[in-house]
């Protein structure tokens, strides 16, 4: 089985220090989360997998 998450409403946030993308806000399995851009974080790893699969798009930061 694939233990994938249902991820919706993904959107980048920018750092207050660098003004570069630093995290992604989304809803994962019904939970509202802010996800760091750390490949060891399994939320982020799953986001990358779904983006690569073409099933998820991340909106730009405001």
């Amino acid at each position: 089985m694939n233990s994938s998450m249902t991820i919706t409403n993904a959107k980048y946030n920018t750092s207050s220090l660098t003004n570069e993308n630093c995290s992604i806000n989304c809803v994962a399995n019904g939970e509202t989360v802010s996800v760091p851009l750390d490949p060891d974080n399994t939320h982020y790893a799953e986001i990358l997998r779904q983006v690569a699969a073409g099933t998820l798009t991340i909106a730009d930061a405001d």
Partner: protein
Amino acid sequence: MTKARTNASASPAVGRNMVINGAMNVAQRSASVTGIGATTAHYPTLDRWQIEASGAGRATMSQTADGPNGISANCIKLDCTTADTSIAAGEYFILEQRIEGQNVQRIGKGVAGAKQVTISFYVKASASFTFVLEVHQSQHGRSCNKLFDVTTDWNRIELTFPADVDDGSSPIVDDNAVGIRLFFWLHGGATWTSGTLQSGSFVNSVSANRAAGIDSFFSNTANNFFITGVQMEVGPVATEFEQEDFSTTLARCQRYFQKQLATGAAYERFGNGFANTTGNFNTIIPMQVPMRATPAIETTGTVGNYGVYHANAVTAATGIAIDGNADGNGKQVGVNIADSNSGFTVGRSGMFIANNTVAAFIALDAELN
């Protein structure tokens, strides 16, 4: 004088149990959740215990005050609430624990000198069932699966899994990713059950063989399943369940998940910080223990549940997001609190708080999903 170390052992007296929260004492997320089975994979209640599911069956999962005397006062209870007797091929329902690779190096799996492991646990149910425990090493796709019988009384199951040398050059990676997965198969369709159980040795995993011979937990809404005292240790012998004080187990769980509730205060304080612009407040949320990876932050989903207390007033948040460059090497998480109405004063300090609601919480999540 140099004294030889005589107590070195792959199965020490303390710390031999590779399973975390095997006594089912820690449940930071919730003590009980209904509708289990609707989400493909998640951690609904007890820490470190994940549910993987696909199918029509539903259950309530709870931390229940029941257990074999002298082992644990708590267990996981799964209560079937929606039966599923028309089982589609791909369905499954699994109780799972994922263990970091760096915590299973003592097994020596995948290379010469690999060791046996013994997994023991206490189970009972509303009736007699047969289920499967699978030890799965996903990095190399290796599995060994064993049936176990459940009765209406607490019984200890002791299952010894063989050493797995594999091709002699496929060790479990020594890092913070998943090394071993323990699958308690409680329900499965033909995709997982139509073959022959692979119980004698570790082999490259074949889907049809993984849960052959199991009954279905979802056969009747009268079905309940209880489990506690789960232990995985090196060697061919199931030793007595290793007792652990609550604070130690909690700290081990908090490496993966930490939750700060506002149940005791409607203006619970979560962290201190300052405003760097009129629309942004920088705060730092300290970790209770260093976490496995930079965590995600979970909130209620209602951003107005949170605010910033500054200048003797509360400004409601309009956004909450992890900031970069603020992980603090595993000690804290940097978070930006937005106010789209530009109500902050640059340079002014304040506190990130619950905004007059005990529903608010902050959870840090670095689980092995």
